[in-house]
């Protein structure tokens, strides 16, 4: 391909920093940003050239994957800045391009219908007033986070590791809302729809379903605030479903319709898309067939080094602080292990404050590399259910659920 800036923001002047793939370019932004509207970087996989967009509402600089409908990735250094991902740097992922750009809270209603005793139409004031408020810190991660690292490569949204974020969500329990409507006996699933729709009539509306017991577990919530603020429109203003421990495909944005179903949902986005092989870590060999598939569901543990990046130089013979984030998937973080010798020896890192089962957890430790030369740092999380990240990359044809132990090659000098 010859084109260097496909799908870039419509800016008149651009500055490309070559070699910015190490994300070192971001350190230069302060100097450059005042005079140029956009910067670019290279994600570390083929065709990984990306611009940094600054023209999306409610968003700071974001890695531009697709303008319409927006796919915006969080620049990785943001994850070194705190355990919660700021709203203006939180990644963005839409499927269908017909996204309302004007939302009047006074007009907005959430419908609850289907196999219920009393269908409801709840406005925002009533939702806040009539139901007990709850808060939960939870990671929202795209099913296809890190797809760009799949080898062999697969088609889809070509993200690096920034299609995830951690927020403090506030809202009401889905259970309480369903109880108000009165779920009738025989209900099987609960289907969620948001305000976004496709451009042509033939595109299936983006709707997702949860089993009725899951929907009523008291953890799934309808959030109206994210990190103490209303949700940015691009993250689902005014209401978003929060499904702790499950992939973000279920976290329906601009949620305005809840339908209780008597039969299993057979819509496209449950039955055809977002399916994974029913194997540990959804892992199969390229070309493998005959494996049963199931809708993607619970997340698996991951961990990342956030203060060092590939090819960084570190001092030999000295104590080097290494820190990062981890999450347990559908369980808490049990421990985080770090290796400074490519996985031969592992040391346990100190864990930061516990913000709850489903949150990022910060960790830190220090290493000493005795001699100069290349070294591979590796980080591995084990969740509280005892599930560890795999040391060999998991693979499937849709690019879902990557959670291999991360490796960061550095040079001791």
């Amino acid at each position, binding site marked *: 391909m010859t084109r260097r800036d496909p799908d870039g923001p419509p800016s008149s002047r651009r500055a490309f920093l070559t070699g910015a793939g190490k994300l070192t370019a971001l350190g230069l932004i302060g100097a450059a940003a005042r005079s140029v509207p956009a910067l670019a970087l290279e994600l570390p996989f083929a065709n990984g050239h990306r611009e940094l967009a600054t023209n999306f509402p409610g968003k700071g600089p974001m890695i531009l994957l697709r303008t319409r409908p927006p796919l915006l990735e969080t620049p990785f250094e943001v994850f070194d800045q*705190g355990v919660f991902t700021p709203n203006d740097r939180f990644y963005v992922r839409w499927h269908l391009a017909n*996204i309302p750009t004007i939302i009047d809270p006074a007009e907005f209603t959430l419908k609850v219908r289907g196999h219920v005793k009393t269908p409801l139409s709840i406005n925002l004031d009533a939702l806040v007033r009539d139901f007990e408020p709850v808060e939960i810190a939870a990671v929202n991660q795209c099913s296809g986070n890190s797809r760009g690292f799949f080898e062999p490569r697969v088609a889809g949204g070509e993200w690096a590791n920034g299609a995830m974020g951690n927020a403090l969500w506030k809202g009401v329990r889905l259970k309480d809302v369903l109880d108000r409507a009165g779920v009738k006996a025989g209900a099987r699933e609960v289907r969620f729809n948001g305000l976004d729709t496709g451009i042509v009539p033939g595109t299936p509306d983006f709707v997702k379903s949860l089993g009725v017991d899951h929907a009523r577990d008291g953890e799934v919530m309808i959030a109206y605030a994210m990190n103490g603020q209303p949700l940015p429109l691009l993250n689902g203003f005014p209401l978003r479903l929060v499904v702790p421990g499950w992939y973000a495909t279920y976290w329906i944005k601009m949620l305005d319709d809840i339908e209780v179903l008597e039969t299993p949902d057979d819509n496209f986005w449950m039955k055809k898309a977002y399916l994974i092989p029913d194997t540990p870590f959804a892992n199969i060999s390229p070309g493998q067939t005959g494996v049963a598939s199931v809708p993607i569901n619970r997340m698996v543990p991951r961990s990342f080094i956030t203060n060092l990046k590939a090819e960084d130089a570190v001092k030999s013979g000295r104590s080097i602080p290494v820190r990062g984030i981890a999450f347990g998937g559908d369980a808490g973080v049990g421990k985080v292990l770090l290796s400074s010798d490519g996985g031969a020896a592992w040391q346990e890192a100190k864990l930061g404050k516990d913000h709850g089962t489903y949150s990022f957890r910060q960790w830190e430790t220090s290493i000493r590399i005795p001699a100069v030369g290349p070294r591979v740092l590796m980080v591995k999380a084990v969740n509280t259910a005892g599930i560890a990240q795999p040391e060999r990359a998991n693979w499937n044809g849709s690019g879902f659920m990557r959670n291999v132990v991360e490796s960061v090659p550095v040079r001791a000098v």
Partner: protein
Amino acid sequence: MNSASFIRYAGTAVAATMIGVACTAPPTSVTDPGRRTAPSAAPTWVKVSVDLPTSGVEFPAGQDADLANVQCLICHSAGMVLRQPALTKEQWRAEVIKMRSAFGALIPDGQVEAVTDYLHRINGR
């Protein structure tokens, strides 16, 4: 080491602040692990009205680029296509057919091969 040292590196933020974009401060209000009942400060609802950027990017010039420009920019901008890894001709054909069968794209039968060939020419393996 104690939890204070973890808080310290919240201050090492560079990019966002240097660029002059206001960063929402991460909340520090969660003191208890796990979910809990929240203090009820009711949100103030304000009407939201935004402009979403558009993309003027077209497909790279070449034979049948016009077909891609007509058929492939209706539901998503070109970035969805141009940022894919290099695909085989079979994989590109499968994508074009998927756009019809799964998403309702109205690509005439007679254009499927031409668009497939074009996509394979600009980013094939």
